[in-house]
């Protein structure tokens, strides 16, 4: 039967391909977000080639599982994801379509950043779970350079497992990067007047609390992933009446809710980037830290 011959040919192709496993020279790294791409460059230096999937001006929660992402992951030696559910709306589909077992979950080629860190708690971990997005804790830790410094070390160790002959090189670079991240964070924190307060759109910029002397007073979203409601905004205004503060939101988040607080509380609105440019190295991220601090009068 001619149909059965197809099966045999296909199986032969599968088996034949098992013997061809070329070892590319630079480590092919695919990072889901620009911050992770930055970290891969900072740690990997000239030993890595980095492709970032999520653009810096898009919400990494809501991307399409694009075929071009699958093509990129197909050729990756190492896949970096933030984890904690940040990419759950699209990365699983990308991974299953990429047909690259080297970067499957649980393999050395799959680095889930959230596994190496303790995350800030999220209201979704306690409350009725409608917003579903932060159930494993707040996954936007790229806003915190101190956690990025910890991550640099973990990433260097992972890269060292994949390229043992370069392990020392990666470790040295990660130590340098971690030191610069911590120094810059301290310098910026010193320049900011104490007790600056703010409201964020989403549960993301609250990570600023971790390294700047600032305090988050609330969120425009009633629950992460659920758009601001009029009732929730009115309650925020009632609670914050008479206090000094500012409203921060990512450029890709709508500004309407922030406008409501501005009108009723007289607060300034700051639209900020949450990610460095997609091709950023460590300098690009340090610059982004300065921009965040500048919102509070530092930087």
């Amino acid at each position, binding site marked *: 039967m001619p149909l059965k011959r197809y099966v045999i040919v296909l199986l032969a192709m599968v088996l034949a391909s098992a013997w061809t496993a070329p070892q590319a020279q630079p480590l092919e790294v695919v990072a889901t977000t620009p911050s992770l791409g930055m970290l891969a460059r900072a740690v990997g230096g000239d030993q890595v080639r980095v492709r970032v999937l999520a653009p810096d001006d898009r919400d990494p929660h809501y991307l*399409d599982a694009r075929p*071009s992402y699958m*093509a990129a992951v197909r050729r990756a030696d190492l896949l970096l994801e933030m984890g904690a559910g940040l990419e759950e709306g699209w990365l*699983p*589909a990308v991974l299953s379509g990429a047909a690259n077992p080297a970067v499957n979950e649980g*393999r050395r080629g799959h680095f889930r950043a959230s596994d190496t860190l303790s995350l800030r708690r999220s209201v979704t971990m306690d409350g009725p779970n409608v917003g579903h997005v932060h159930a494993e804790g707040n996954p936007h830790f790229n806003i915190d350079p101190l956690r990025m410094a910890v991550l640099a070390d973990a990433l260097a160790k992972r890269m060292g497992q994949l390229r043992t002959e370069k392990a020392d090189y990666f470790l040295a670079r990660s130590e340098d990067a971690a030191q610069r991240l911590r120094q810059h964070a301290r310098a910026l924190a010193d320049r900011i007047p104490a007790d600056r307060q703010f409201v964020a759109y989403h549960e993301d910029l609250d990570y600023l609390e971790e390294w700047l002397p600032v305090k988050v007073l609330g969120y425009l979203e009633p629950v992460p992933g659920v*758009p601001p409601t009029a009732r929730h905004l009115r309650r925020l205004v009632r609670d914050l009446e008479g206090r000094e503060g500012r409203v921060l939101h990512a450029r890709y988040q709508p500004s309407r809710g922030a406008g409501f607080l501005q009108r009723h509380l007289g607060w300034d609105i700051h639209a900020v980037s949450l990610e460095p440019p997609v091709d950023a190295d460590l300098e690009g991220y340090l610059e982004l830290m300065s921009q965040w601090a500048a919102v509070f009068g530092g930087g």
Partner: protein
Amino acid sequence: MSKRNLNHGGTGVLAAVAIAAMPLASPVKAQEGVDLNISLILEGIYFNELREGNESPAGFGGGHHHGDGHDHGHHHGFDEGFNLGHSELVLEAKLGDFMDGTLILGFDDHDVEVEEAYLRTRSLPAGFQLKVGKFLSDVGYINSHHPHDWDFVDRPLVNEYLFGDHGLQEIGVQATWLAPTQSYTLLGVELLQGETSGVANYRGEQSAINGTERILEDTEGPRLITAFAKFAPDLGPDHAVQYGVSAGYARRYQETEAHSTRFEDWNGTAWFAGLDAVYKYDAGRSYGHGNWRLQGEYFYRVIDVDRRDVEFTDVDSDGNPTGRNIGDVRNVQSFKNKQDGVYLQGVYGFAPRWEAGLRAEALGLTNEIGRGDGSSPDPSYRYAAMVTFRPIEPVFLRAQINHNDYADDHGRDRGLDFMLQLNVALGAHGAHRF
């Protein structure tokens, strides 16, 4: 096996669906150790025929026409009033990183059906993947997508009438290879049992009548082979496009239909080929505001059969002798039916969480029916407009108007349908496919 028609007395009520949904609205994770995701998709549809048109497009089933094994009844499958649309229970489990298992049960208020039940490898080398079980074929674009991922309430005509009520859904094996290229290039082959009404209808051997053998014979599976290629260049963060080409060959296509005194039997082969394309624009704003999606597919199908009718009675319905004997053979003929269909649709996010879309369809632009003396019925058309609102991500409410312009034996007639759809996804809802 032919499935029962979905067109039963609908008792589902939108409100009931919404209320039933609430207490379940939390992700379901099975106990640790077993990586099992469960989700439930509930749907309610309100249907109202505002103006009655022709029931089915000329040349595609209905009446005495062939070309479709299912008795469609109403082509849309909805009752006037409330319908429990197309609900699904989805179970996905991982066997380490070796393979994934997926079970999708589709149900309405009368029937439960296994829509998909397959294993898919995760650890073959060099970009190969195998899928085994019952699954939706990856030919074309919309065929492998489940209804809750569609932009319109109903299935495009070309998919429904060239393949079947559930599209091309078969038991078999799929092998794909993703090329290690910068641009996404996926090649795939499927070996399928061959039971889909539109392209691989199978009846098997029918008993002889008064010693006269029937033209229909048993044919071992797999009877249907398909192949497809998908290509998607990287166009940067704002634009994404995917092109597809696919084809299939069924080495057995059979029909049998009882007329008043004879069985009409077809036995032969069928093939199809098609093109599809999808373009998506991401405006970079929240909740889909400013986004575009354009999507279109074209399919061409040829049914190539021998026909031979056999008399099963020698008296007509009034009890008068027909003058023929039981077992007499009539209408020996070989012919081809060549038909096609196409649709094009666009959806625009006109406000955060709001989308509007238009769809234009044609069925039978090529409509050459070789049966009998041959005929070329006029093409049929359908136009749809919809508005969708997504209050929160797993919920959408959609209103749609269909304007049907179907040809049939007696001429053209225009109908107007209104549909209201509520769809809720509960539990660990998996990642969306492109």
